[in-house]
């Protein structure tokens, strides 16, 4: 059974629709991430699940139980929804010790003292903070506060865990480490999690499924790999990195066994087959997305696979980035961004052959 269900959920602030007709199911034990640019309605969606914001349309269910139904004017206040939540600011109460912070949800529920003791110890052990139990909360570093916030959210075994950009206040190294630790903890406990972030790599690394949002709408839901490699729209494709888009025309379209479609395309300086998520009519304009790391250059015109896509062009810019080198090459297909190994260093103005793997190309409606 779905642990979280959003059915046509909307939230209007006056005339502005912060969230517009969103449908989403999160399965029990699943880790789902809401991803999107600033102001797209991620936080609002999460807060509606939490009950901190009231949806103006649609229904929200948790564990098959309706917690909010705009039409029936039913709204369950947050404290009765049995959720755990980690806030961006961590919201560690500064007037309590670490122990008291974590014990709060249990004390509110009037659990016996020895149970509180055991469970808080257990939760603090999970996040490796058991030695800090008696610290006053303000005397913690950002990373430690974050762990306490997770322990507090987990301590009473909530039905669902909600997290709003929990890592954004940490420095880059700690962010990756804490994210990975949290993911393995989540897998171990099998706790359903709804996670909000605007960081694509975080979303990729942590989630079972990613929900890409844009101005209140859901653009696409899918596994991180699916979303990255097979976007259904140009917007989703453009959200990750700065891929190349090649305008092309559809000359043939067939459905494939896995439900996607195989198009035959006629593009600038190139023709051939390309995958697409939706059926396209003959003659339709589409764009083909090829990510810069899936393109390469060969300077002497040798050894390209038979079905590879190739263009000749001139290098106009070359930037050394440490892990790789970013090239911009002027070709008949337009200016292409290409990431090559840092040791490959064609001169500015030199003519190169750009090579792209056909497997990496994916067409989206223009």
């Amino acid at each position, binding site marked *: 059974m779905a642990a979280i269900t959003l059915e046509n959920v909307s939230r209007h602030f006056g005339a502005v629709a912060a969230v517009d007709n969103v449908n989403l199911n999160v399965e029990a034990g699943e880790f789902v991430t809401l991803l999107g640019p600033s102001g797209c309605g991620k936080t609002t969606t999460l807060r509606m699940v939490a009950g901190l914001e009231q949806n103006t349309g649609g229904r929200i269910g948790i564990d098959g139980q309706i917690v909010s139904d705009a039409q029936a004017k*039913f709204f369950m206040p947050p404290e009765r929804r049995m959720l755990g939540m980690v806030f961006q600011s961590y919201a560690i109460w500064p007037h309590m010790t670490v122990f008291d912070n974590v014990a709060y949800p249990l004390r509110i529920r009037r659990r016996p003292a020895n149970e509180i003791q055991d469970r808080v110890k257990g939760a603090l052990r999970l996040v490796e903070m058991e030695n800090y139990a008696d610290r006053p909360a303000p005397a913690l570093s950002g990373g430690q506060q974050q762990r306490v916030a997770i322990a507090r959210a987990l301590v009473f075994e909530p039905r669902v865990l909600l997290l709003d950009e929990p890592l954004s206040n940490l420095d880059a190294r700690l962010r990756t480490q804490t994210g990975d630790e949290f993911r393995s903890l989540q897998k171990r406990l099998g706790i359903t999690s709804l996670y909000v972030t605007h960081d694509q790599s975080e979303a990729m690394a942590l989630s079972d499924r990613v929900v890409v949002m844009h101005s209140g709408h859901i653009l696409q839901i899918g596994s991180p790999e699916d979303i990255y490699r097979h976007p259904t729209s140009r917007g989703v494709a453009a959200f990750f990195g700065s891929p190349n888009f090649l305008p092309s025309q559809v000359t043939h379209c067939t459905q494939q066994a896995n439900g996607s479609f195989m198009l035959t395309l006629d593009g600038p300086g190139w023709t051939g087959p390309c995958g697409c998520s939706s059926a396209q009519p003959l003659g339709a304009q589409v764009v083909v997305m090829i990510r810069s790391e899936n393109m390469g250059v060969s300077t002497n015109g040798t050894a390209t696979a038979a079905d590879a896509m190739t263009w000749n062009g001139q290098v106009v810019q070359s930037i050394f980035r440490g892990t790789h080198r970013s090239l911009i090459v002027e070709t008949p297909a337009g200016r292409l961004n290409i990431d090559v190994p840092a040791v490959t260093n064609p001169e500015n103005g030199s003519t190169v052959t750009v090579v792209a793997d056909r497997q990496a190309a994916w067409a989206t409606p223009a």
Partner: protein
Amino acid sequence: MTDDTAGALRSSSTPTSKLGGVDNVGFRLARYFTGRDALVLALIAILGFLAVYPLTMLFYGSLHSTPPGMAGEFNLDGYRSIMTASNVIVLLNTIGISLGKTVPSLLMAVFLAWIIARTDTPYRDKLEVLITLPFFVPPILTAMAWGMLGNPQVGLLNQVWKWATGSTVSPINVYSYGGVIWHQVQYSTPFLFLFIVDIFRAMDPALEESSRMCGASRWRTFRNITLMLMLPALTNSFILSFIRGIENFESPLFFGTPAKITVITTEIYNSINHRATPDYQYATALSFAIMALMFLLVIWQWYVLRGRTFSTVTGKGYAPNVMKLGPWKWVTFGFCVLFFFITVILPIGQLAIGSFFKFFGFYSRDMFTFEHYTAVFSNSEIWRGFWNTMILGLAGATATMFLGSIVAYVSIRTRWRGRRLIDALAWLPWMMPGMVLGIGFLWAFAMLPGPIPIYGTIWALMLAYMALGTPVSVRVMSSAYAQLSYDLEECSRVHGATFFQTLWRILIALAWPSFAVGWVLAFFGIMRELSASILLYSVGSEVLSVVLLRLWSNGQAEQVSVIGLFMMLLVIVFRWAQLRFIKSRISTL
């Protein structure tokens, strides 16, 4: 784009699902929504009773020809009777005295604040505590002390002067315009100081430094930059102090009335207490007129401050520029000590001396006695007044702060319907002098249906104190809440706490230093209150200030001194506890 499993809800919400029927849903809905609405309605009802009801009754009473609770007719006699030439004098007196005390107080407060915040005067932190102490002393005590100190016949100051110079004229007479103003200056200066010193401290030193870098002298910078930046805040303080001057009752009562100087508050009081038959209609019409004056002042304040921003004065903790005064620092030090000596030590000393001699003014060894102490301690009426004050102080301050906490919460931290109305209602008594509120409540209690006997009980005072204290308590708690992030509160709700549990365990728990500061202010406010108490007390519910005034009118200045000393002691203990336990907590939070 629709998720493939959407629609699962639809099947799970059929009548056979474990969601339960519509009744269950409806029940929960009703409970949640009426909880919030009931709270809003309850607040509106309470605040309406505390502010709007007495105000309405004041208007009703001003048109009613007989005292509260008696049958009568409606006419405009009240308003007609206040339109007299002598009342023009009263109005001019009121405004003149208030202006006369505000201007010197403001100058002195700016000077003191500058000394404390911006110079290297020694022991500044201790001096600050001493300078602000007079604000916390009930004015009735210093009024009585100054009545003894500056009495033209037997006042201590005059006696010392005559003894020192051998002259026979008394230079000081507190029963005069000067006396009325002088007594108010003692309160206004620390009051204004408390506002201004924080502004001096919060000013970004870079603003002044850049003026110095542009070639302006120190004095030029002070005039052109520092004072100009503070101007909106100074204007606001000026108006606030002016309003309080108009509301003032003790100073004109003690020093004006004997010299036939009448202001609006004493005119109202006299028309009820000092005429053969109390003229309630006249008093009420006059009260309504003073409300109109206050209203104009508040509009003026709003108009002056409109659009002014204080953004140059941020709340960040800068280390302000400190001026090195050299040997002059002992002059500024001396000035602060002198202020403290005159406003606190002299009156306390007078009370102490007065309490040990048979008759005040006659200080020779054979007059030395403890009899006033035994008289006071065996006087059951004084004890009753003491206990009433304590009960009202403790319960009233607590109730006021709880009301203020909830009102502040609803008006600044929620988006509930009705919150603006609640905020406005809670602010309304700010415009009502205690005297006016007292008369409003006299009418209000008399008009209540028979089975609610408030008048004549301690509840009458309790309600008046709550009304008078609520604007301050709301303000204190609002600024405390404004510093707490919403996450702290929402996090508590998500983790299972109800609205009231969150209010108590998170918000009040975090804001308790402010709560305590507000509580102490409310307690002091109740302890010093005279003008509403004098109208609303009845036999058995006298408070200390009323008992003191009665003893004083009976000529028992010596017993007054004893009680005054103990009240001073109480003030100092409370103030010490406040500084010791609360301030230190605030700085660590």
